[in-house]
């Protein structure tokens, strides 16, 4: 499979329909790389004209901004916008809710105006348009699956239904946790917590949340954020349930269910 870069496309005088923004987690984190690979597999199968920035992609500045380092954020935003505008990018899809939020809500004030779509909505649209053909009696049919809302998709941007519709399209048995949608409990990674030790407390947030997910009796915990995925995977491991319960991204579930 060939993954086209913007530089290549530019050299061939081509423009992609959509830029796939991989994000730092999707690029470097071994677990999140699997999500990235699943997503490009879908793009490739559907022959969608996409490209990545490759080595030219940089951190959006989200963790720096949330930690309070506005200078670092502004520097990263400036550089990214230069590159994106240089390539005349119009539409961006990303599998990371943090990248999605910052592109959609915060880059416009700095001169970065793009149509931004999270892969949950992107996949839902492809399913609705009948472009994604799912296997009859697919791998997850009838399986008990619970969905964990990412804060930066859910409360931050009101996206609750799209990922659930993607799951329902696979004929899974969707079970909700006690706290879901706008009541959803954070995985513990947001606000730059991913990059530091948790403050002192009685229990780790990711363990609190994965316990809630395990209580549903689901065999798959679905997520739509690479950071939530890491946190919940660690939580499930902590309870030694990693054999019975998998934490999977919706893109991985779709890729595995496609014909």
């Amino acid at each position, binding site marked *: *499979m060939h*993954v086209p870069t913007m530089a290549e496309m530019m050299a061939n005088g081509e423009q992609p329909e959509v830029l796939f923004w991989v994000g*730092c987690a999707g*690029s*470097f984190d071994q677990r999140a*790389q699997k999500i*990235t*690979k699943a997503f*490009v597999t879908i793009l490739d199968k559907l022959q969608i004209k996409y490209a*990545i920035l*490759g*080595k030219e992609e*940089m*951190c959006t*500045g989200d*963790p*720096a*901004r*949330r*930690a*309070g*380092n*506005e*200078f*670092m954020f*502004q*520097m*990263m935003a*400036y550089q990214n916008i230069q590159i994106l505008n240089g390539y005349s990018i119009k539409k961006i899809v990303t599998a990371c809710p943090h990248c999605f*939020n910052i592109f*959609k*809500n*915060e880059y416009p*004030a*700095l001169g970065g105006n793009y149509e931004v779509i999270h892969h949950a909505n992107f996949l839902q649209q492809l399913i609705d348009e009948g472009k994604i053909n799912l296997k009859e009696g697919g791998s997850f049919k009838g399986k008990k699956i619970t969905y964990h809302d990412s*804060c930066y998709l859910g*409360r*931050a*941007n009101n996206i609750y239904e799209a990922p659930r519709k993607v799951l329902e399209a696979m004929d899974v048995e969707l079970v909700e946790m006690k706290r879901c949608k706008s*009541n*959803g*409990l*954070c995985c*513990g*990674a*947001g*606000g*730059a917590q991913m*990059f*530091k*030790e*948790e*403050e*002192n*407390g*009685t*229990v*780790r*947030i990711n363990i*609190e949340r994965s316990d809630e997910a395990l209580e549903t009796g689901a065999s798959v915990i679905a997520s739509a954020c690479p950071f939530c995925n890491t946190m919940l995977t660690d939580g499930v491991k902590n309870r030694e349930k990693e054999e019975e319960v998998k934490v999977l991204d919706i893109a991985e579930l779709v890729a595995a269910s496609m014909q």
Partner: protein
Amino acid sequence: MNYFQQAAFLLLSAFAIWLFAKNINQIKKNILLGRAKDISGNSAARWKNVLLLAFGQKKMFRNPLVALLHFVVYIGFVIINIEVLEIVLDGILGTHRLFLPVLGGLYSFLINSFEILAAGVIVACAIFLVRRNIIKLKRFISKDLDGWPRSDANYILFTEIILMSLFLTMNAADRALQLQGALHYADSGNFIVSGNLASLFGELSTSTLIAVERGCWWLHIIGIFAFLNYLPYSKHLHILLAFPNAYYARLEPMGEMENMKNVQNEVLYMMQPELAPAVSDATTPVKFGAKDANDLSWKSLLDAYSCTECGRCSTACPANKTGKLLSPRKIMMDTRDRIHEIGKNIKANGGTFKPDGKTLVNDYITTEELRACTSCNACVQECPVSINPLDIIFELRRSLVMEDSNAPQEWNAMFSNIENNFAPWKLSPDDRDGWVRELS
């Protein structure tokens, strides 16, 4: 006698209203100590928020049973104030039940509704007292509320019960007097609650009943004026500030963080020096983020005064739930306490702030609390009166990091990784597309 009562009433009302206006004005001054921030435009959406969130209490209904009880108290408060209008006019004009002859049948309908609500308010407040003091719900026994805040809540509930009881007793004595054919007590018919209580007073003499009726009338109105003047000292101020706070609530998606134009420009001039203004207008040093309460925007301070310390934010907070120090409710209470103190300091020192060696960060809110936040917006989502604790947390974090270079070591490493490797981890930018090579 009557003229004396009228004069006493006028004096009392004038004093109560003057004192209230004076205290509210001080609170307004304190709020305006905050950083200027333009919150305007889209008034249709803003009025919709006032209707849905403030008048309709939409977010309270996330917990329907409690919302219903609260709604009874709220409607009781608003509606029964229509009756207070009659009480005030009676007081000024020396009349009794001024509206009775004018409104006729409508009058008994109105008073009946007020009485049902008054009884409802008593029941609801009693249940609230039980929830706070006997069932001891977690958010009410939290250490956030130790001391004055816990008493404050109970005083409010007791006062409401007393005021409503006085109103009903007054009507019951009134009815008993009517049945005895006392002078000045025109027949208004039986009201739904007090009508049943009136028989309890049947044995009492006319003069005793008049004393009870007048006593309740005076205590009720004195109670209302006292309660009005209690508001500026109490969390109960939310009954007023919830409305402007809903109007000025953020309309942007919750995930959007406020841009810092000054930092944006500095970075721009650094990257493209040709754009920098020839003469720097930066004569006054710029502060980054907020170190003290008056560095916060006026909206954050309005938030602080609107907080009724219900604790829904802290119950929903993932950090608080897992035993971290952070409590969004405490962030709001600390902010209000600090801006109140700054306001007092300025007043005592003839209009200028005399440094007291304290700041909101460190002396009120610790770095440990600020660092526990996951920016998940659960607190913002929960708040029934449109408060945004996250705005304050972010502003304080900005000051810690940019003014004091005070960040945990791991964050400093993350910053330098982003700067040098363009990713929060210490991994080479050349490997960013390494995953491509692993694809089949």
